[in-house]
C-alpha cells in the first residue's frame, strides 16, 4: 500500500512565494530591479 505523500507541491510553493512578493510590492517594501 502506498503511503500518502506529505510533500507540498511546487504549485503551492509557487503560489505562496508569488503572493508574498505581490504583497510586499503592494505595500511598497520591495523595489524590483528594472528588467
Amino acid at each position: 500500500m502506498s503511503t500518502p505523500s506529505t510533500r507540498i507541491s511546487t504549485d503551492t510553493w509557487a503560489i505562496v512565494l508569488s503572493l508574498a512578493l505581490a504583497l510586499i510590492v503592494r505595500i511598497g517594501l520591495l523595489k524590483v530591479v528594472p528588467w
Partner: protein
Amino acid sequence: MATPATSLPDLRTEYPPHAPGRVPAERSTLLGLLPGIALLAVVGYAGKFVEHFINTYGKAHHYVLPNIEYVLWAILFGILIANTVGLPRIFRAGVATYEFWLKAGIILLGARFILGDILKLGGISLTLVFIAFAFSLTFMTWLGRTFKLGPQLTTLLAVGSSVCGVSAIIATQGAIDADEEDSSTAIAAILALGAISLFTFPLIGHALHMSDRAYGLWAGLAVDNTAEATAAGALYSDAAGKFAVLAKTCRNALIGFVVLGYAIQWARKGLASRAATKQLDNKAAFLWKKFPKFVLGFLFISLLATLGSSTNPTIAALGFTKPQLVALGNLSRWAFLLTFAGVGLRTNLKDLFKQGARPFVVGALGEIAIAAVTLLLVLGASHFYHL
C-alpha cells in the same frame, strides 16, 4: 536521521528525469538549493548580458546585427555547460527548481493581463485547443498504431503532444498504469521535439510576419512543454512570450479532463489496476488533484490588476497601481530568466538521442502535423479576430 519531508520547502520539479537512466536530484535543504539557483541566475544573466552587448556593439559600430533574444543565449549556454563539463552534483538540486520559477513567473505574469483579455484570448485559445486536441489525439493514436508502438506508449505520446507535455504524461502514467520506461521514452521524445521547436518556431513566425499575439497563441498551442512553450514565445518577442503563456495555461487547465477521459476508458477496458480504477470513485476529487493550481494564482493576480485599472477609486484601491504592475511584470521576467537557464541546463543531448527511433519518428511526425494544423487555426482565427 532523515528530516521529515514536510519541514523542508521542496522546490524541485515534481517530474521524474526526462530520459531513461537519469537520476533525479536528491531532496535538499534550502541551503542545498542555493548553488543551483545561483547557477540558473548566472547563466540566465549571461544570456541577457550577451543580448545587450551585441545590441550595443552593433549600434556603436553601425553594424546591422541580428537581435537574438537573451532566451536563446541562456538556453545555449545551459546546453553547453550540461553537455561539456556536465552539471556537478552540488548544482543539481537547485537547477531542478526551474519548474518552480516557471510557475512563479506565470503567476506573476497575471499582472500583465486584465481579466477581459484573458477571457477573450483564453476563449479563442480554448476553442482552438479543443480542435487541436481532437486532431492530435486521433492522429497520434493512428500514428502509434501504424508504427506498432505499445498502446501505453501511444497514449502517453498522444497526451503529451496534445495537452501539456511532461506533466500530462506523468499524470496519465498513473491513470493507465504505464511503466516507467514508456513514460521516460514519451517524455524524452516530447522534450527533444520541444528543443527543436525552440529553433524552428521563431524562424517560421518571422517568415510569415506573424503578429506577437498570433505567434504567441501558436507557440502556446503547439509547443508541448510549458517551459519550452514560454521560451519559444519569448524568443519571438516579450509580448509573444506573454501570449504563449496564456494559450499554454489554457491547455494546462484541461489536463485533468483528458487524463480522466483516458483513465475511464482504460478502466472500462479492464486494463487499469485496482488502485488506478479506485481513483475514479470521486471524479471531482480526481479532476481537482490533476488541476494545475498555479493557474488559480495567475487568475488572482490578474484580478488584482483588473481591479487596479477600475475608474472607481474604491475598487481601484483594492488592486495594484501601474508602477506596482510594472514591478510584478519585471519579477515575472526575472523568474522566467531562471527557467530558461534551467531548460538549457537540464537538456542532455546524449539522452535525447538514446530513446530509439520509432517513438521519436512518431512524435516528430505528430508534432509537425500538429504545428501545421494549429498554425492554420491561428492564422484563421487572426483573420476573424484581428489578433
